[in-house]
C-alpha cells in the first residue's frame, strides 16, 4: 500500500484556506500558482505579480490571450476591475517595503531556522537564474512555502541546515508539504496539520529537523 499523501490540489487548498479576506498575495512560479484556483469565493484576495501588476485575474480564454498582460511566469493573465500596472522598481518596492501580506513560494529545502533554498541546485553545470526569488523571500509579511516533503530519492527537504545555496535567511513562516503543514519560528517547528493515515513518528523520521506535534488528533 502506498503512503498516504495530499495531492497538489489539496496542498493548494490548505494554503488558500489560510489566506484571509483582503490579503495582498504574490503566488510564486510553479506549485504556488495552483493556489489561485482554490481561493474561497467569499474572500476578496488581491494578487500581485512582480513584473508589474496588481489585481490579477484568471487566465484568459483561448484566443483571448494578450502577451502584453502576463504574470511573472510569463503566462497570459487578465486584470480585474480595480487592478493596475506599475514599473519594476515600484513593484519590488511594494515587496521589499513590506506592503504584501503573503508570498507563496516553491522550495528545494527549508531549514530549522526558516532559511529558504529555492533558486539554485548548486550543480556545476547548472546555469544560475534567480529572478525575483530573493526579493520575494524576504519581502512579504509572511512567506509560505509549498513543496513535497521529501525528494524523489526520499531525502528530507525540511533540514537542520540547507545544503543548497540560500535564497533568504530566516524568512519562512509556514511550510505546506504533501504530508503536513508546519509552522517554523524561533521556538522550533510545529506540525499543525498532518495527512490522514500517517503517524507522527513516521513524519518525524522523514524530516531532517525536530518536530513538535501541535495538531488536533483525528
Amino acid at each position: 500500500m502506498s503512503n498516504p499523501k495530499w495531492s497538489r490540489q489539496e496542498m493548494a487548498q490548505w494554503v488558500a484556506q489560510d489566506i484571509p479576506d483582503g490579503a495582498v498575495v504574490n503566488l510564486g512560479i510553479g506549485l504556488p500558482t495552483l493556489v489561485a484556483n482554490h481561493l474561497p469565493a467569499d474572500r476578496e484576495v488581491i494578487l500581485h505579480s512582480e513584473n508589474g501588476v496588481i489585481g490579477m485575474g484568471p487566465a484568459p480564454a483561448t484566443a483571448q490571450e494578450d502577451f502584453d498582460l502576463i504574470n511573472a511566469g510569463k503566462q497570459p493573465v487578465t486584470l480585474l476591475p480595480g487592478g493596475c500596472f506599475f514599473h519594476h522598481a515600484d513593484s519590488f518596492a511594494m515587496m521589499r517595503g513590506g506592503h504584501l501580506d503573503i508570498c507563496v513560494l516553491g522550495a528545494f529545502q527549508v531549514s530549522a531556522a526558516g532559511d529558504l533554498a529555492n533558486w539554485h541546485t548548486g550543480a556545476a553545470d547548472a546555469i544560475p537564474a534567480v529572478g525575483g526569488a530573493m526579493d520575494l523571500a524576504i519581502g512579504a509579511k509572511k512567506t509560505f512555502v509549498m513543496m513535497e516533503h521529501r525528494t524523489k530519492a526520499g531525502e528530507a527537504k525540511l533540514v537542520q541546515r540547507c545544503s543548497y545555496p540560500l535564497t533568504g535567511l530566516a524568512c519562512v513562516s509556514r511550510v505546506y508539504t504533501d504530508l503536513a503543514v508546519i509552522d517554523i519560528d524561533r521556538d522550533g517547528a510545529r506540525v499543525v496539520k498532518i495527512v490522514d493515515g500517517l503517524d507522527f513518528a513516521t513524519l518525524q523520521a522523514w524530516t531532517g529537523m525536530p518536530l513538535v506535534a501541535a495538531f488536533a488528533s483525528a
Partner: protein
Amino acid sequence: MIDKIHRDAAAALADVPDGATVMIGGFGTAGLPDELIEALLEQGARDLTVVNNNAGNGDVGLAALLAAGRVRKIICSFPRQADSWHFDQLYRGGKIELELVPQGNLAERIRAAGAGIGAFFTPTGYGTQLAEGKETREIDGRLYVLEHPIHADYALIKAERGDRWGNLTYRMTARNFGPVMAAAAKITVATVHDVVPLGLLDPESIVTPGLYVQRVVPITRRTTVGAGFKAA
C-alpha cells in the same frame, strides 16, 4: 523646436559605438523593443554589455544578438528559460560573461542610476552567494547589502504612445523596466505605436516625462508573441 521623433530605428541607433552598455527593456517578450534590437543587430556594434531581465528567447531579437557574438557581458536576473538555448550555449562555452542580479535589486540599481543615488543598502540577497564580497550593514536590527547603481550609454525601450517631447505611455505589463531604464541611460530610444501631437497625451497619464527620452521611433504594431515558458 524640440523634435525627438526619428524616422526609423536605424536612424535612432546609428551612433551606438562598440563597447557600449545598452539597457534593453522587457520582461520576457512584453515590452521587448524588437525593432530596436533588430536595428542594433543590423548596425553592427560589438563588444556590448547588455542589461535585460532575461537572456533572450528562441532565435530572434536579443537571442539573435547574443547568437551573433555581439554581446560581451549580460547583466540579468533570469537567463535560464525554456527557450534560452543561445545564451545557454555561449555561457557553457565561456563566451559570455554573466552578472546575475536578483530582479528587485536589478530594478533598484537601474532606478538608483537614474535618481543620482551613489549606492544603497537592500535586504535582498543578504547571506546568499549573490552578496558574497559585498559590504553589509545592520540598520535598526535588519541586515542589508550595499548595491551600486547600473548606468548605461543607451536604453532601448518599448512604449505605447509618445509625442515630440518624448513623453511616453505604456501598455499593461509591457511597462516593466521601461520607466527606470529611460532615466538611467545617457540616450534613451523608445519605440511607440502612436505619435500624437504635443498636448494630446493626458498629463495625468504620462508615465515617463520626456526629459528622460532622447529619441522616439514610431513603429507599426506587431502582436506580442508569448515566450519564455513551457506550454501547458
